[in-house]
């Protein structure tokens, strides 16, 4: 029997991960050579170009959501991991504490300072600033700080009684001056060429000025200076440019047989708002034999409106009235990314940088492989 090429329907079916009441089926992809006799599934750049798509759903400075359609999980996961662990950002790395008489311990204070996300001029951050490397000779460490690898910050706060406070005042922020130390109290000290790259709008400053660092009482003081360096998330989470970068697979809801009337309303309630819509059965549908709509003209039926909003809770599979009427699944090659930036990078720029990064890694690997076979 000669081999028949697969129908479009069959190709779609192969992409779906089945989600059943208590099990999940067809988890791994099958579009590689030797899975289907007579079909060539070897990887081809032209076929990839033809099928690959990116759709943006949301693109804000702090949050971007987009879909990668038609790529393998390994690629999508590589992007996710690169975004979390390999995109460099600037963060506080060393803290020089001259005085800290607050109740918060020096090491805890230093740790808290390290986790504060900072923003600054994009050109200066991404092009001008370079890596700082610890010198091999420890005694040369003070000669290793330059304007292009270290950013200097200061924090000088002293808490005092506020003489102008009303008698009987109990709010510490009114009773004392500087009772709370916020991220906005951190002062940027530009050195050398940093004046050029980080002035005015572009000054290095905390993204969220209202982060509470410590609380003070009269007589207590925090006086410290800090050095910021570039780093990557694989070294420490404070260097990660994203709060979260995650993906999920596109949910698929397939209504196999009509769900009508009261059942339709109940069915819609099994999903988050907006996933399932209710429509009236039309005359044509009711006239069609074997469609299941015969004699139901004017009744409401459940239709899938926006499967992307579904959480795939499988609630609808619990009810006997929907048995065999609905099929749940996820598209194996449709990745819905959600990238939340901490503020140093634009959220979409993080993804673009991840793409560039993966390309660089691949080129490095190519060089190594060529060296190896030579």
């Amino acid at each position, binding site marked *: 029997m000669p081999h028949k090429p697969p129908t479009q329907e069959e190709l779609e079916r192969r992409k779906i991960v089945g989600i059943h009441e208590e099990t999940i089926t067809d988890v791994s992809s099958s579009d590689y050579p030797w899975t289907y006799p007579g079909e060539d599934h070897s990887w081809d750049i032209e076929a990839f170009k033809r099928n690959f798509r990116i759709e943006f759903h949301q693109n804000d400075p702090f949050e971007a959501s987009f879909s990668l359609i038609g790529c393998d999980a390994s690629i999508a996961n590589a992007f996710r991991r690169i975004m979390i662990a390999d995109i460099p950002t600037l963060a506080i790395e*060393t*803290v*020089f*504490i001259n005085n800290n*008489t607050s109740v918060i311990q020096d090491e805890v204070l230093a*740790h808290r300072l390290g986790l504060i996300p900072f923003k600054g001029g994009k050109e200066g951050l991404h092009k001008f600033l370079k890596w700082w490397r610890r010198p091999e000779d420890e005694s040369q*460490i003070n000669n290793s700080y330059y304007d292009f690898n270290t950013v200097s910050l200061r924090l000088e706060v002293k808490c005092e009684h506020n003489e102008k406070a009303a008698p009987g005042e109990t709010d510490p922020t009114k009773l004392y001056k500087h009772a709370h130390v916020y991220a906005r109290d951190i002062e940027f000290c530009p050195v050398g060429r940093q004046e050029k790259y980080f002035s005015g709008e572009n000054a290095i400053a905390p993204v969220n000025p209202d982060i509470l660092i410590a609380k003070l009482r009269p007589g207590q003081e925090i006086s410290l*200076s*800090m050095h910021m360096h570039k780093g990557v998330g694989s070294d420490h989470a404070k260097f990660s440019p994203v709060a979260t970068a995650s993906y999920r697979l596109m949910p698929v809801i397939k209504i196999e047989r009509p769900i009508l009337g009261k059942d339709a309303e109940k069915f819609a309630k099994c999903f988050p708002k907006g996933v399932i819509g209710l429509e009236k059965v039309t005359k044509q549908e009711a006239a069609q034999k074997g469609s299941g709509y015969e004699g139901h003209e004017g009744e409401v039926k459940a239709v899938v409106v926006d499967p992307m909003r579904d959480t795939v809770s499988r609630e609808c599979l619990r009810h006997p009235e929907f048995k065999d009427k609905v099929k749940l699944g996820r598209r194996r090659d449709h990745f819905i990314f959600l990238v939340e930036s901490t503020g140093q990078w634009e959220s979409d720029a993080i993804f673009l940088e991840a793409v560039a990064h993966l390309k660089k890694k691949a080129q490095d690997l190519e060089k190594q492989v060529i060296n190896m076979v030579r």
Partner: protein
Amino acid sequence: MSREQYQVPTGSPTADGGSFKVAPRDYVSGSSDNTMHYLCGDCAARVPLDKGAPIRCQRCGGRVLYKERTKRMVQFEAR
């Protein structure tokens, strides 16, 4: 580190952190630096105390006095 190598640090930290200017300070013979300051455990006042003076807060009479924090810079990794 062996005991012989240990030396009492005499440098005073500079404000920019990281680098030390070595400027030895004489704690014993200096007339102005002779009085030590302590913190009262009761009223939190800064109490100057001469050598041999009774250990007592001049303001509230509290007998618990704490040492002040070191004037030296302390370096931490923000991790």
